[in-house]
């Protein structure tokens, strides 16, 4: 049996990786739940963001947080234009999966072409900083990820709940024609939501660049677990991915500490199946 400190450290690192799952899942869940588009390219966008952060920090010497000033607006425009194209060609939910898979491969090749397939590690002022909390280590990059994930999830939740635009988005997601009869311009709201989701991917990219070694093939590493997180959290629910992400993160890292890393995916997908079964009964 591992020591208490080791278990507590595992729980903590589970919370941190879970926050990243939640942050990656947030944008995916919003576009999936509210626009009925399954955007696989969300992961590729996050890595594109990570590489851009790497480039600006490593190459141009920026502070990693300052890169958000460039990445967020660029990704907002990128996400909005992607959605404009999807709407222009009337892409169905299932086809969106195929098209965005294609986009993912294109972005992967692009990354490989620009930054090669070598592993890249970003040196930044934040990378090596870690606090000590009792017997536990708290690395600054991971803590930053948690803070950003919580802040963005809460912001998305509040925006959807308390602003006219957010409510209009929810209304349009449920019954677009009736929402339009009350003045909701679904088309421009969809562009806005897609832009915001892509900007979230950009922020997730920053977090990835801060905490992980970058390689183009890493794009595919988290797709499975983040899809599980999105489905457990509930499609279109802005808080769900974060909560589900942290639950899965903790259970994964405890599994790794108690048994072996190979068992970790089993835990996340068993959880997914249990939750889906439980939810099916409610319907």
């Amino acid at each position, binding site marked *: 049996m591992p020591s208490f400190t080791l278990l507590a450290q595992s729980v903590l690192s589970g919370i941190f990786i879970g926050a990243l799952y939640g942050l990656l899942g947030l944008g995916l869940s919003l576009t999936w739940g509210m626009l009925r588009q399954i955007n696989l390219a969300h992961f590729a966008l996050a890595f594109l963001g990570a590489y851009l952060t790497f480039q600006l920090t490593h190459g141009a010497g920026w502070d990693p947080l300052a890169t958000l000033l460039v990445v967020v607006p660029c990704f907002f425009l990128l996400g909005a234009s992607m959605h404009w194209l999807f709407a222009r060609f009337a892409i169905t939910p299932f086809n969106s999966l195929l098209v965005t898979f294609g986009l993912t491969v294109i972005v992967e090749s692009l990354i490989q072409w620009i930054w090669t397939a070598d592993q890249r590690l970003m040196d930044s002022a934040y990378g090596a900083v870690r606090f000590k909390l009792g017997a536990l280590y708290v690395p600054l990059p991971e803590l930053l990820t948690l803070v950003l994930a919580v802040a963005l999830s809460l912001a998305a939740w509040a925006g959807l709940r308390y602003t*006219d635009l957010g*409510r*209009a988005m*929810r*209304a349009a997601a*449920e*019954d677009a*024609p*009736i*929402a*339009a*009869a*009350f*003045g*909701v*311009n*679904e088309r421009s709201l969809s562009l806005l939501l897609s832009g915001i989701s892509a900007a979230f991917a950009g922020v997730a990219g920053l977090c990835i660049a801060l905490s992980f070694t970058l390689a183009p093939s890493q794009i595919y590493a988290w797709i499975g677990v983040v899809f599980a997180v999105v489905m457990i959290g509930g499609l279109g629910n802005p808080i769900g991915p974060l909560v589900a992400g942290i639950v899965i993160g903790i259970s994964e890292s405890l599994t790794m500490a108690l048994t072996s890393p190979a068992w970790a995916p089993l835990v996340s997908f068993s959880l997914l199946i249990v939750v889906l079964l439980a939810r099916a009964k409610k319907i």
Partner: protein
Amino acid sequence: MLELDRIQVSYGAAPALWEVSLAIGAGELVCVVGPNGAGKTTLINAIAGLNRVRNGRITMDGRDLTSLAPHCYCDEGIAIVPESRRLFTGMTVLENLELGSYRLAARPGRAQSVERVLNVFPALRERLHAAAGTLSGGQQQMVAIGRALMAKPRLLLLDEPSLGLAPSIVLEMFEVIRDINAGGVAVLLVEQNVAMALEVATRAYVLEEGRIAGEGAPSALLATPHIRRAYLGER
């Protein structure tokens, strides 16, 4: 105020309305009666911008609406209480009402508008923060009417407001509709409950198989043997 000039609406290749012309003056309460499948819902949805008009023109005070995007119709002061209510069931009652006042012209004085709706439908007061989907049928109809009132309409479109409601609530609904109209809002009412509709209306149209088959004062229509046979169950 509202004028329909020979409009045609089709679903795919199948025409649902043929050259329907109709007019509603300011403050009128006009009802459209007709059998199931005559195109009543199609007609009301076309006026709300929910259906594309293929031919003909819809004008509001002379302004052509036909080429507008669907979300622009409400800016002309048109609000709809759609068939089977179509509330945003996952949102609260208050959120449904406030969405009704989404158009910019309806946003000022939103709190007063909510208060006005609650005075018309006091039963909604305790349910304001409940999800709209959890309400009873009658209460949902109240929310649907309230949502439309929130838009501060000049023309209120009501599609079968009595459908699926208990008789006592139906009476209350007609009372409310009459009051709304008395407050200066023009009303276009589509109803299966022909006797009730003709009682409150100032003028009525008969819609049959996508065409206007008759028009006039309710008393005149009620005197027509065809109407009495077809809609009031007389032999």
